């Protein structure tokens, strides 16, 4: 990779060992993925729950945090993805003291590095949405795909170590979705059904993700009969990224880089697929066919917007959840939900509002064992995709069906 004088100085240690490690790590990654040089980035977003970090990862962070102040600070706004617990409600989840201690150590290390502990995967709805053409280093696949596709920003998937590196160096290797040539569609999906519920948007994302198959594919959708809302885009994108490892999609006539078909679809033939309502129904049925009741209901992955919180509260009004119902939101939405009485409405009906965490990033396997949770209902297709590996049997239902199940002792209608 070509390096500027500044980057050479970072590599030789002029800015201390943390920056030196960071640029060396970025050169390794950039070289593998064909980057010619670096691109400056304006924001970094770090995924670093302690289930992923483990003790080894936390100790690794603490080594950098122990450096002198002038050698350990990030140089661009650097924020965080959800943490591994909500300290205020950890006892309700039966999170163990060792988990909380590891979280506290990770948080202390990040704060020492100058990282802003936003603890959210919906920063594009709540913190600082990127603008079209802005180069970023985002972690969390849902954040990347929404920012790239809906906002027109430019980011690759940046795992925790690479996002932290970008925070420390203020740049990232220029490959993949930082480059125009990777942002053109590689497959066309003709949609004959426009979803109505968030779980249906997630199911559509899952189907397209399976069709796409890998990170370097860019699906373009045609045929949607209306502009999706931010929450609908969020669930569609999160599922597409989860099932397909996809980082960018276009919706022709809707998303900013695809106002016309030929904006996003290069000349020549593209593989084309048709997706209709029967496919969406079959996708969902695949998750519910063997389950007639659930142990808990989870709204999470991504964290709920204020509008989703309002919807959960409305659905619970006048009812009572008789199995655990968890509504997980961000630390930015939670105070608004408190102030507007949404938290009280959900909790007075037997639900639990959690903030700053995400269900699957919060020791999902240990929670299952400690609480006897096995079967779970959710309206998040992303969550259904992840939780099978943690030993759960997930059912993908609408928010309304999930609430109904929670109020019927877990029995599915």
């Amino acid at each position, binding site marked *: 990779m070509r390096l500027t004088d500044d980057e050479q100085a970072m590599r030789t240690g002029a800015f201390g060992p943390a920056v030196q490690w960071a640029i060396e790590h970025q050169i390794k*990654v950039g070289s593998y993925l064909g980057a010619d040089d670096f691109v400056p980035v304006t924001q970094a977003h770090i995924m670093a729950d302690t289930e992923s970090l483990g003790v*080894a990862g936390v100790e690794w962070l603490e080594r950098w945090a122990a450096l002198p102040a002038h050698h350990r600070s990030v140089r661009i706004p650097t924020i965080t993805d959800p943490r591994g617990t909500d300290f205020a409600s950890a006892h309700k989840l039966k999170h163990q003291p060792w988990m909380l201690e590891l979280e506290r150590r990770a948080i202390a290390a990040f704060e020492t590095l100058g990282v802003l502990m936003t603890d959210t995967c919906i920063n594009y709805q709540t913190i600082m949405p990127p603008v079209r053409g802005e180069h970023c280093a985002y972690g969390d696949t849902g954040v990347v795909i929404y920012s790239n596709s809906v906002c027109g920003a430019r980011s690759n998937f940046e*795992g925790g170590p*690479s996002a932290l590196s970008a925070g420390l160096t203020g740049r990232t290797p220029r490959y*993949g979705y930082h480059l125009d040539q990777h942002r053109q569609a590689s497959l066309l999906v003709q949609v004959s059904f426009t979803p109505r519920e968030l779980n249906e948007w997630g199911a559509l994302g899952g189907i397209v993700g399976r069709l796409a198959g890998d990170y*370097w594919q860019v699906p373009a959708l045609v045929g949607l009969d209306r502009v999706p809302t931010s929450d609908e885009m969020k669930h569609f994108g999160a599922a597409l990224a989860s099932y397909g*490892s996809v980082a960018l999609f276009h919706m022709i006539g809707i998303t900013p880089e695809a106002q016309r078909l030929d904006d996003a679809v290069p000349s020549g033939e593209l593989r084309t697929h048709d997706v209709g309502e029967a496919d969406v129904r079959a996708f969902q049925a695949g998750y519910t066919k063997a389950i007639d009741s659930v142990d808990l209901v989870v709204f999470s992955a991504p964290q709920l917007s204020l509008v989703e919180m309002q919807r959960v509260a409305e659905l619970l009004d006048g009812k009572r959840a008789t199995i655990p119902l968890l509504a997980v939101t961000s630390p930015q939405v939670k105070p608004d939900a408190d102030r507007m009485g949404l938290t009280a409405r959900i909790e007075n009906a037997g639900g639990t509002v959690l903030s700053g965490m995400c269900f699957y990033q919060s020791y999902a396997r240990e929670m299952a064992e400690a609480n006897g949770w096995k079967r779970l209902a959710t309206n998040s297709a992303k969550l259904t995709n992840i939780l*099978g*590996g943690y030993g759960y049997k997930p059912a993908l239902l609408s928010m309304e069906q999930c609430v109904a199940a929670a109020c019927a002792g877990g029995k599915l209608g």
Partner: protein
Amino acid sequence: MSQIFHARAGMGRKLQGQALVAKDGFSARYDLDRIKGVFSRPEHKLAGESYVGRMLVLDAAKGGVATAWMLYEMQARGVMPAALVLNAVNPIMVQGVALADFTMISGFDCDITQAIPNGAMVEIDPNAERPHIRLIGS
């Protein structure tokens, strides 16, 4: 038939070992019970199989960003595959391999999961002028 398969990129060390092969994806968070060292997602073609010490030959990197940390954590506990061989990587896999100082090669002219028999002995050289995987026995 050629017994050597060239990759477009590689990182790590030259290694020999037994291949564990499937036409399926790889994500540390989605697919593994990292404590027991087995594939745990029921739908995965290697569900229930131990990956510890094996040369994993799979189709594509999948899932979220957690693998970037998890490979390092798995390496620290020693409950880890020996190497990864993938048709297609995503940046997360590359970032995780770089942090963990692990071995991976990726990008082939053929479907590598069809070219390498499950259980075969293989040699991986990520640092050769053309990184490759070579069959050395069945």
